[in-house]
């Protein structure tokens, strides 16, 4: 049975000071520009760990850096490669459940088959201390990907914020030994603590505002495939910038290139790459087997939500919601899932959308021109009209509901969909 303890918030800093002695401590810190990012802590006295929100980037770069020197090479006499020296051990503190889940996925990628020595030498020396999310944020959907808001495993320690104290649970033997090494900071868990924690976990689970039906999307893709119009629409909106892959905590594709330092010396660098870049698959001579852009998007979304789902029985999306805010064109996992899930009702949707559009224009809530645009959007994207109108602030949910209720009242009865005929 793994250990459970309580640590008072006042004791957290002294505990981290002890734990991270001789290691690099990484924790969420708000920088001078107001961005909350996982950063290296140089001084616990001068940097404030901020656990109030989800960091804007994941912890991916600390195990798989955006740009990393693998070797220095010398080609003066012969051609010799010198591997990078091992760094210090690392304590990753304050990781959100999505970010820990993403590390577990990276473990599969880099340690399953041929092992990646450069990943392993960092990973083996990394302690992970997570914090469950009492309140999901606006774009979060880890409930749908089963990667949060609290985890059952994958961490050394997981904290739950109980107000003036944290509930601390160990997730593996190393977590237990951390708790045993510094008993002065921890006190036993009471029944009240357990009850409070249980309640917070339940509340967190019911706190999601965004519904991204990842499971239904997988089933739909498996059974019905994906309508070509979805790929075409997404490709029109995608600039191939790779931002979604860079921000994604589970995107692990990379390129390797040489950077000369002198005629005789240079560095071999590994850098993040993205499957949405046109050059990702093109070869010397110009042939590109994955072209045009819709093929690249197909590969990206199906890798995460279909092929990985088939292989690992879960998607390689951890529901962190970060790609939902990063794309100029709104081409994110949320939109894709929504389009896949709603595409099968397209014809019905069209009819109801046109009826709804008529009612709203008649009620004087939206002018005809705006409605035409919204209708076009509905048909192109396969997203319900009501959602488009509400999302763009053209009507409120209440207005929408009232208009529909009036119509239903005037009809005198509701014909339940799916039960007729």
């Amino acid at each position: 049975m793994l250990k459970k303890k309580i640590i008072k918030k006042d004791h957290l800093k002294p505990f981290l000071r002890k734990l991270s002695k001789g290691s690099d401590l990484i924790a969420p810190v708000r920088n001078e520009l107001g961005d909350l990012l996982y950063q290296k802590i140089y001084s616990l006295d001068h940097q404030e760990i901020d656990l109030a929100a989800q960091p804007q980037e994941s912890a991916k770069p600390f195990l798989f850096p955006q740009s990393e020197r693998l070797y220095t090479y010398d080609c003066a006499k012969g051609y010799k490669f010198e591997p990078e020296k091992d760094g210090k051990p690392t304590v990753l503190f304050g990781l959100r459940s999505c970010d820990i889940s993403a590390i577990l996925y990276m473990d599969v990628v880099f340690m399953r088959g041929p092992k990646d020595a450069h990943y392993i030498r960092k990973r083996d020396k990394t302690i992970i201390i997570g914090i469950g999310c009492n309140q999901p944020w606006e774009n979060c959907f880890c409930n749908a990907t089963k990667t949060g808001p609290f985890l059952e495993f994958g961490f050394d320690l997981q904290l739950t914020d109980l107000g003036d104290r944290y509930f601390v649970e160990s997730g593996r033997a190393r977590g237990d030994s951390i708790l045993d090494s510094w008993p002065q900071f921890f006190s036993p868990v009471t029944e009240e603590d357990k009850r409070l924690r249980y309640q917070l976990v339940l509340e967190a689970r019911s706190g999601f505002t965004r519904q991204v039906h990842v499971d239904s999307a997988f089933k739909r893709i498996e059974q019905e495939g994906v309508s070509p119009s979805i790929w075409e629409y997404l490709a029109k909106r995608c600039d191939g910038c790779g931002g979604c892959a860079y921000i994604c905590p589970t995107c692990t594709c990379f390129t390797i290139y040489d950077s000369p330092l002198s005629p005789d010396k240079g560095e071999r660098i590994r850098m993040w790459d993205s499957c949405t870049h046109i050059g990702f698959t093109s070869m010397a001579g110009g042939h590109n087997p994955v072209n045009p852009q819709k093929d690249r998007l197909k590969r990206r979304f199906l890798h995460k939500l279909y092929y990985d789902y088939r292989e690992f029985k879960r998607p390689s999306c951890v529901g962190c919601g970060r790609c939902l805010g990063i794309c100029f064109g709104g081409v994110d996992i949320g939109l894709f899932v929504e389009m896949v899930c709603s595409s099968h009702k397209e014809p019905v949707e069209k009819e109801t959308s046109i009826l709804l559009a008529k009612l709203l224009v008649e009620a004087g809530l939206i002018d005809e021109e705006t409605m035409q645009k919204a209708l076009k959007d509905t048909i192109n994207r396969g997203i319900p009209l009501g959602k488009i109108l509400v999302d763009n602030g053209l009507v409120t949910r209440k207005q929408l509901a009232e208009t529909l209720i009036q119509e239903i009242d005037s009809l005198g009865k509701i014909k339940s969909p799916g039960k007729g005929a």
Partner: protein
Amino acid sequence: MMNQPQHIKNNHYTPNNGDMLLPSEATIKDIIIENSTIKTFVIGLTDPQHAQSFSYMPGHFVMVSVPHQGEAPISISSSPTQQGPFHLSIRKAGRLTSAIHNMTKGDFLGIRGPYGRPFPMKALENRDLLIVAGGIGLAPMRSVINYCVDNASQYSSLTLLYGSRSPSDIAFKADLEQWERHPLVDVRLTVDVAEPGWNGHVGLVTSLLEDIEINNQSHSALLCGPPIMIDAVSQMLQDKGLEPENIITTLERNMKCGIGLCGHCYMNGIYICKHGPVFTMSQLNEIKRHQPK
């Protein structure tokens, strides 16, 4: 995900320190000029122990490092039946291959591998082999043909159909002459465009195929060349009654690691570098079926 034939094992040379991305030093022992854009480099590994333990089969590829240019996947063009250094036949196509073409005897390269799944030479024993290659596509097939020639009693027959753009583009001339003299091998050449003095066949490689009789019970075809050639030849062979499982090809992709990590060669849930690059057409059909409608 895909059933791997028993006799094909993933072949990963793991250096002593376990770092799969670390290249080993090698030297260019010799250079054979094959045509105006293709050269064959004879490669010797510096570390005698590594050279000793370096084993491969036709169809394997290595990651080649060129100083300041990075790495590229190149298939081995020599046969493991021939002792000593191995060969890489390289067409000058881009930045890295141009740099290799500018190198001379005694220059240094980095080598990782061999990687991938090779041609199923064991399963092909006692069969009539039809090898169809276009341009540089003969490079991996050179390994296959020399392997068969050196184990001639194991294979029923070998017909090579080799297409080039023009007579002066015909590469591997020394090999072709040797094979022409060997009783196992029937060499048939064609060029897209003739030049003065050319008395041979003119037309696409598919036109050579018209005269070939195919028996699915005894024939296996091995294809390598531009994608459009592979598609056309594969279709024609199937029209002649050859089952997709008896048509084998090797795919070329952008690869950065060669070991299924970097993601560049990912396709419908598999990695060309480690699940291939050699596939039967039935395997490729199955991979295509992985993709949802």
